[in-house]
């Protein structure tokens, strides 16, 4: 069982609002690893939308993602890509 950690920065203007939060939760749920996301104050289950929305992660916020399990590497890589892509909002109104 591997534990993998990664810091990611929220780059889209509107931050981790409802739609990107749902994308993140949906992606996290594709992996069997236990996945947690934290800001400075709070660590939450990345697989629960109600928890992830509590991060209130604004543009520029650094989040730490920690995955623990057999597919931890893959999960971290996929989540990192999603966040770094700005949740697909960079070329529209999200800039």
């Amino acid at each position: 069982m591997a534990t993998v950690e990664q810091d990611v920065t929220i780059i889209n203007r509107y931050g981790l609002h409802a739609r990107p939060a749902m994308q993140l939760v949906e992606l996290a749920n594709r992996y069997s690893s236990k996945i947690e996301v934290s800001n400075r104050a709070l660590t939450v289950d990345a697989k629960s939308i109600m928890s992830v929305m509590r991060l209130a992660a604004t543009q520029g916020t650094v989040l730490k993602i920690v995955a623990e399990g057999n597919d931890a590497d893959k999960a971290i890589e996929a989540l990192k890509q999603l966040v770094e892509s700005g949740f697909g909002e960079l070329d529209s109104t999200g800039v």
Partner: protein
Amino acid sequence: MKLSDIMVTDAIIPELKAQTRDEAISELIEALAASGAIARKSIPEVTKAVLAREAQATTGIGKGVALPHAKLKGIKKPVGTIGRSSEGLDFSALDSKPVYSVILLLSSPDNPDEHLQAMEAIFKHVQRDMFRKFLRQSETRESIVELIQEADDLG
């Protein structure tokens, strides 16, 4: 941010007449206008924005709760209201279950951070089983207002 800072007491609807998602959204927006929280002439624009957001992805986040929302020019600070449906509404929710509590939130496009703080204030309470249970059981505006107050006091 506190829930009571966002929710407009006079616009809370303890029993929605709505039978559908769109009717519920309209009813809550109408209530916000009637309470004076938003301009009456903005109703069509607000309704269109909230439904457009809903069309992108459902805000029915599961466990009987939906959070329709939109960012609109003309909204200065986050403003919202709550509607309760005892029969349940179809929001095509993530867990495919009916929605009993609809929390509408409108915020400014110029202040995305404030929108996230308002969402955080809402989710802080909504993620608690007891809050969702009591909200679903609250049959009067007064009891919903009291629930919000107690939730805020609890922190």
